């Protein structure tokens, strides 16, 4: 066998095994690689209330409530909203500034602690942008069309 072919075969075999190894590794590390859980996953897992987790989903339409609360003599705006993965829902409460892109019907990722069943206290709220890009006029036309249907 020529030296060239030998090297080619060595590299190919190495790549196959290496890829296979990495695939197994990544598959098993899935739990650690995902950035956030969905509300359904939160319910399925027994998550401690002391463990900081991230949960992501859609902000449910017309679920955003803002009310002024007095904590330690300071007036703070408590924000609460519902995030959903269209199977399960989670009520989020948050005190702080929401990102500009936070909107009902848009994706969001919250970081914080699970309180009792279905309640979540967020420390950080991150807006998740989806892969759709369009000018405002087209968005208007599309939403009019959707409403008609």
């Amino acid at each position, binding site marked *: 066998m020529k030296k060239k072919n030998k090297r080619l075969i060595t*590299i190919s075999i190495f790549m196959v095994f290496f890829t296979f190894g990495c695939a197994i590794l*990544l598959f098993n590390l899935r739990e650690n690689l*995902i*950035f956030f859980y969905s509300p359904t996953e939160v319910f399925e897992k027994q998550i401690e209330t002391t463990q900081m987790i991230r949960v992501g989903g859609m902000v449910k339409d017309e679920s955003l409530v803002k009310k002024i609360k007095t904590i330690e003599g300071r007036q703070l705006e408590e924000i609460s909203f519902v995030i959903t993965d269209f199977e399960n829902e989670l009520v989020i409460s948050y005190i702080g500034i929401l990102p500009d892109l936070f909107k009902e019907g848009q994706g969001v990722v919250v970081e914080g602690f699970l309180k009792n069943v279905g309640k979540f206290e967020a420390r950080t709220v991150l807006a*998740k942008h989806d892969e759709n*890009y369009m000018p*405002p006029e087209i968005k208007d036309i599309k939403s009019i069309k959707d409403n008609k249907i």
Partner: protein
Amino acid sequence: MIFNLANPLRFQRLIEKIEPITLNIAIILLLVGLFFCFFGSPPDYLQGETVRIMYIHVPCAWFSLMIYSIIALCSIFSIVFKHTLADLISRSCAPIGACFTLATLLSGSIWGKPTWGTWWVWDARLTSELVLLVIYLGLIIINNAYEDKSKADRYSSILAIIGIINLPIIKWSVDWWSTLHQPASISKFSSPSIDPSMLLPLFIMTFSFFFFFISILLVRVRGEIIQRKIEVIRFNRMV
């Protein structure tokens, strides 16, 4: 044809002809592209003007992956066929790829702050792109670490081949794992979810960056060829 061009000297003559053309095309496309980025395209319905960062960020990200693929192919070619030109190209590509990766990370970070509300998160897409930057830096360091260039080329080729595994991870991280980063807007299997008025500047910028990459690559490869020639002359004098 390819083996005809694989002769470094013939390649050098070809470079001298192509190089000014590609640079001119890159500059013209860049000017047209920038006009469309800032004036000729609408703001996004949700992000507003921030969307314009995408026209830099997305092409940079594409090229950070494409240049790595070139390095990886050249490395396999170099190890299997021991061809000098493959070494020269992968050696020249590394710093350019590193710059594109850095630009991707920086522009993404600048976009992330107003959009997500954070400069950086450790999600799979962002982290794997950072790993790509580290691999590029590793390649640059190895390429310059050895007095004996053939040794440097062999070690950096091995690193480049091992690093191939990172490419599919970057590409599909957004589909395999839940990430803060959004999935791809442009894919082979579905119509793009970017409005045509926004695709135009994106593609002009992509072509501009492509020609820019080619012209920088050609300059660097020519430099490498000349440097090797000098080394041969020096070696012959010493003997």
